[in-house]
């Protein structure tokens, strides 16, 4: 990635993190709010690959944890994995599929929510499973899916698609 691309991607993730903490988190409809930062990180992962996805996920998570004075590392851990998964999906089966952003956002929203729930539980924090895994998750899923395509187009337009290696036409078995 060139320095310009890194700067643009950092700016996009930073703005998404600030919007998430200042505005988006309070848009609670149907018991849950959208996770704009998660959608942006997934888009960065899909467009630029697994390592940039993980790095920018970590960066966005640290910004959120710093602004909200939350336990440092929790949000970045969830978003690092989300960015990495999205990147791997983009590099393998998801590449060139039109609805890859929708599939990735849907699956990763559910997985991130489950992982976040387990993480908070393991850290000894009281979390209501019904709210976190049903009410809030369903609403967040609907919101995130609605945001997936426009945000993906916006991130693609701002960050730009990276050069990708052509997939091998044949499978070679190495013994």
């Amino acid at each position, binding site marked *: 990635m060139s320095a310009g691309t890194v700067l643009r991607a950092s700016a996009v993730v930073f703005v998404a993190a600030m919007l998430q903490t200042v505005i988006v988190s309070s848009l609670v409809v149907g018991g849950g709010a959208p996770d704009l930062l998660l959608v942006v990180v997934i888009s960065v992962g899909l467009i630029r690959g697994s390592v940039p996805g993980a790095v920018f996920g970590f960066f966005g998570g640290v910004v959120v944890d710093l602004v909200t004075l939350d336990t440092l590392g929790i949000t970045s851990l969830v978003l690092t994995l989300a960015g990495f998964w999205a990147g791997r999906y983009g590099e393998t089966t998801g590449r060139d599929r039109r609805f890859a952003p929708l599939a990735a956002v849907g699956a990763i929203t559910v997985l991130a929510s489950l992982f*976040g729930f387990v993480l908070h539980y393991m850290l000894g924090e009281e979390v*209501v499973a019904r709210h976190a895994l049903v009410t809030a998750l369903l609403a967040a899923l609907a919101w995130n899916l609605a945001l997936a395509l426009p945000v993906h187009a916006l991130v693609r337009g701002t960050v730009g698609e990276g050069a990708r290696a052509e997939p091998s036409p044949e499978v070679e078995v190495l013994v």
Partner: protein
Amino acid sequence: MLLSLVLVTLSFRSSDDGPLTGVQSAGSSVLRPFAVGFERVAQPFRDAYGWADSLLGARSEAEELRAEVRELRQRAIQSEFALQENDYLRRLLEYLDGPRFPADFDPIAAEVIGRPAGAFTQAIVVAAGSSDGVRVNDPVVTADGLVGLVTRVTPRTARVQLLTDEEAAVSAVDLRTSAPGIVRHSRGTRATLVLDRVRKQDVIRVRDEIVTAGWRASGLSSLYPKGIPIGKVTSVGQTDTDLFQQVQIDPYVDFGSLDAVLVLVPTERRR
């Protein structure tokens, strides 16, 4: 990922004045102008949304408020008499009391500049910190009622745990009957609270007002001063098997649309 795990571990292991807290404090201070800037830009849009939303139920709300004003006018007159009588009796007895709300507190107005993402924590971040006199465990209110408690402080910002958080609990009483209980989050929905641990023999009715208890015993005292409004009882139920009544409360504060709050700093600390 390893770095995130290291950060989580260090966060949990470091003390409140440890190096990582210092780093987080510095980071939060650096990001504060951005958060305030974004908040200022978002405010007109939030106001427009609130205005449009309030138009939908304006007529029925106006009717309810007129009825409430009539009822409150009657109660204000009765309260004025009771207040004068109470003042006189206190002077007579030289009665010693704990800190009272709002007389014994200096409110610090603070803008809400952040809300954690996700369904796991119910908190806000406000643009006032230790340099303004805010400390951990200071109660936070709005004109409507109790919001929560300060749980973390940096020089310029503070994190406030909302009453709707899973780990929040406030000792409270029914204003009419003085029946005690503990206000906690409702397991069903974020919009309501419950008054837990209310004995079956205590009488609580729908529409009763619940306020903070502000107890003081054996050198210990509640973090919240006495008499901060919390909400109104919406339902009371009990079963034969439960030890306590199930009391549901509709909070006065709309936790989803907090723009500014008041952090209550004890007057004696500011002297």
